[in-house]
């Protein structure tokens, strides 16, 4: 099947409108079923015992007392999850993270689990499990962990990516480097140089729905899993591999998902639930508590970043350099590497060098969080850029415009850019009325840019046309925020029928071919491409059927506005056949009409955003309030503009929370001190203003409708935008995120004294 993904201009009828989403009614009436809303007959309650220690050797686990408690049906430890990973190091880490094998590596690391007839019995059983720990020295801070003599988290780790293989193990798993030109020479040409060190604290994705699943393993080796996930096909593969079963024997059904943002791209408790069910011979429901969500799932990296940028008097950047250290939790990752790739991606640089270090610490395994690794790097770079603009004496927007990357620029991570949107977002910001609005006392305005890669990936979609002419669309990418509406619009557009006649569902893993997960902003980009392809295949069949009905050659049948039209003089009197008429006749023209598509949607293209924000700082308390906020971002083509706005607003709100409040706080004992929404404070309604959005549409050449991913980039600029606003409001340069009231107050006081 030759599907041509290239963009061509067209006049849209359905795409670009704002209908009500198909899953909306269920969600406002409380009928939609999320992870914890599903039950099976005879199901047990699963619970996980977690390490209270940041780092400890597990010498012995005695489960005998727990097993004897009436109502307990299964108790498992790592021994019940034998290693089937066959040398796949990344999968082994996932296995070890699901259930600690030899050492507990962070406060909250799972060490055992039970399944019992009810929650109370399960909780009691956990208390009866005796774990003999040998507590080891721990390290939770990223800079401390890099120091010589820091407690070693894994003594088999020798830093990859160094000139010479190190002789001693360390907590640094990898060094990676990007860049081009000669930064040394570049700094030699600079009239001004900014050099600063920054830190950002660890944050959590903070989805409101805790991880939840129901697992049912059968005696014949098959199993069912109901789960909230961003990728049920990926969960199926991971669970099947970890449990040593055939993927096709495990059917995974995705529930509605109550937020993910990257945190539900990773299995945590699902393999444990399956193992419990296998041992107990009954279905097991396992729902994490909020405390467990914070202690054991999620978080992003904590970072420490040094930045140096130099510019000539005329405002040209001559050299830029960054060293980035990202915590990975106790397992190897590539978080700093991505940070190093994204740091300077917005700019046209002759000389640039970035170096990333992946650092192991006794904290939960780092997971992706919306544009993972980019916000921290952007915080450091965009703060330094702002400072440099001031030194040069240029307006920060003009300074960025002067140095912005454009088509043909060699990106800081290597490749040369095609058509990109950084320039247009900056121009839009320059001309935005927000930039000219007056400011009051203690108020300041800041702006910053952000970059993210978007993904495509493997996608499979089925489009079935019913006898009544209505269309069911089965997709395999999870709907995290309205994609069923967008995809229905796409199918309606391509077929030329009304949106109301299309119903999109997310199919389970046994009903559709493999799909990558909804991550990297790929959901609408990839699945819309597959939907267009499936619709085009269906249209070919529709034309064939119409040709049969008319008894003419299919070459003489075209498809226009939802109708088959006969072409050519000799068919002048044939009129049109609607999709509905062709569908009604399908039983006698060859059976059901469907279009399928299996493809790899590549060429997603990169994404840029520029944000503006106004803040007010209270000089007495150090509290910062966001007064006004504007997001400008390129969407390629906004399929359902309301949901595109929603992505921009949601990303910005998460970035604002990260900038001002959210952080993991560890005690000296290595335990997480604030594992709850009371002390880990995400923005509430009264913390935020309305968030204005401006959608730019610069078509993506690699998508038939020009669509780009839109989900992630908006979390990237807020950290620096707010820091820059604070600097303009109060004259203090904040280098430590979050800019919580005590930190801001300390900076204000230092400035007053200084």
């Amino acid at each position, binding site marked *: 099947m030759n599907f041509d993904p290239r963009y061509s201009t067209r006049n849209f009828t359905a795409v670009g409108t704002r209908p009500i989403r198909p899953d909306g009614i269920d969600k406002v009436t409380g009928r939609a079923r999320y992870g914890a809303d599903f039950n099976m007959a005879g199901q047990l309650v699963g619970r996980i015992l977690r390490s209270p220690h940041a780092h400890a050797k597990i010498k012995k686990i005695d489960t005998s007392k727990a097993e004897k408690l009436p109502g307990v049906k299964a108790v498992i430890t790592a021994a019940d999850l034998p290693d089937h990973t066959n040398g796949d190091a990344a999968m082994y880490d996932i296995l070890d993270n699901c259930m600690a094998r030899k050492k507990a590596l962070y406060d909250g690391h799972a060490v055992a689990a039970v399944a019992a007839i009810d929650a109370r019995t399960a909780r009691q059983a956990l208390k009866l499990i005796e774990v003999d720990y040998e507590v080891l020295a721990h390290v939770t801070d990223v800079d401390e962990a890099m120091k010589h003599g820091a407690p070693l988290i894994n003594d088999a780790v020798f830093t990859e990516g160094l000139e010479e293989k190190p002789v001693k193990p360390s907590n640094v798993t990898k060094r990676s480097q990007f860049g081009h030109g000669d930064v040394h020479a570049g700094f030699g040409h600079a009239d001004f140089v900014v050099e600063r060190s920054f830190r950002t604290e660890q944050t959590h994705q903070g989805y409101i729905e805790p991880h939840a699943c129901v697992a049912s393993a059968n005696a014949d080796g098959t199993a069912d899993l109901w789960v909230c996930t961003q990728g049920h096909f990926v969960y199926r593969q991971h669970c099947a591999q970890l449990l040593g079963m055939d993927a096709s024997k495990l059917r995974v059904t995705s529930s509605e998902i109550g937020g993910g943002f990257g945190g539900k791209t990773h299995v945590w408790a699902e393999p444990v639930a399956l193992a419990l069910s296998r041992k107990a011979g009954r279905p097991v429901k396992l729902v994490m508590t909020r405390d467990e969500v914070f202690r054991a799932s999620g978080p992003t990296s904590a970072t420490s970043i040094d930045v140096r940028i130099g510019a000539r008097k005329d405002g040209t950047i001559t050299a830029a350099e960054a060293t980035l250290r990202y915590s990975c939790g106790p397992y190897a990752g*590539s978080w700093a590497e991505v940070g190093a790739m994204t740091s300077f991606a917005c700019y046209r640089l002759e000389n640039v060098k970035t170096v990333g270090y992946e650092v192991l610490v006794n904290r939960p395994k780092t997971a*992706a969080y919306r544009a993972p690794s980019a916000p921290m790097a952007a915080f450091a770079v965009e703060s330094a850029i702002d400072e440099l603009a001031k030194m040069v004496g240029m307006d920060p927007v003009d300074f960025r415009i002067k140095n912005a990357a454009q088509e043909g620029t060699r990106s800081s991570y290597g*490749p040369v850019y095609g058509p990109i949107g950084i320039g247009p977002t900056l121009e839009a910001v320059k001309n935005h009325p927000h930039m000219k609005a007056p400011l009051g006392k203690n108020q300041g305005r800041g702006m910053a840019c952000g970059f993210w890669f978007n993904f495509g990936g493997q996608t499979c979609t089925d489009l079935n046309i019913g006898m009544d002419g209505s269309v069911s669309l089965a997709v395999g990418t999870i709907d995290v925020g309205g994609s069923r509406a967008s995809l229905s619009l796409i199918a309606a557009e391509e077929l030329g029928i009304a949106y109301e006649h299309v119903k999109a569902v997310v199919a389970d893993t046994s009903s559709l071919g493999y799909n990558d997960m909804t991550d990297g902003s790929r959901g609408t980009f990839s699945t819309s491409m597959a939907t267009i392809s499936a619709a085009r295949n269906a249209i070919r069949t529709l034309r064939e059927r119409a040709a049969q009905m008319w008894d003419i050659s299919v070459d003489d049948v075209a498809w226009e506005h939802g109708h088959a039209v006969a072409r050519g003089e000799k068919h002048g009197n044939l009129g049109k056949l609607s999709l509905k008429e062709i569908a009604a006749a399908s039983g006698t023209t060859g059976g059901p009409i469907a279009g399928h598509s299996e493809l790899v949607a590549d060429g997603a293209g990169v994404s840029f955003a520029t944000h503006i924000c106004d803040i007010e700082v209270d000089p007495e308390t150090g509290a910062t309030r966001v007064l006004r906020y504007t997001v400008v971002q390129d969407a390629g083509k906004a399929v359902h503009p309301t949901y595109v706005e929603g992505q921009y607003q949601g990303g910005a709100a998460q970035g604002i929370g990260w900038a001002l409040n959210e952080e993991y706080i560890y005690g000296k004992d290595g335990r997480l001190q604030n594992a709850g929404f009371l002390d880990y404070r995400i923005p509430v309604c009264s913390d935020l203003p309305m968030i204005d959005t401006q959608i730019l549409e610069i078509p993506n050449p690699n998508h038939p409708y020009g669509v780009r991913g839109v989900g992630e980039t908006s979390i990237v600029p807020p950290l620096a935008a707010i820091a820059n606003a604070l600097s303009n409001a109060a004259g203090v340069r904040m280098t430590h995120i979050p800019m919580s009231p005590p930190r801001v107050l300390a900076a204000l006081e230092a400035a007053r004294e200084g």
Partner: protein
Amino acid sequence: MVEVTLWGSLGRAAGGTNKLDIEAKDIRELFRKLAEQHPGLQPWIDRGIAVSIDGTIYRDTWSKQLPQDAEIFLLPRLAGG
């Protein structure tokens, strides 16, 4: 013959070379020859490598043709949110 730039941690895995000339018509052939010539890259290929062809990143389309004068970068595969 296409010129391929190995980026990030990949250069070291190939024994310290950053630029390679390889006779390959598509991504599949490129990966096969890379693994033959630099066995250190095999685990990276298994884990997933993204290929940037003239600035557009391909992760899974191994049948993608490599134009003769194209600029080709191999990058580590990323995780998204």
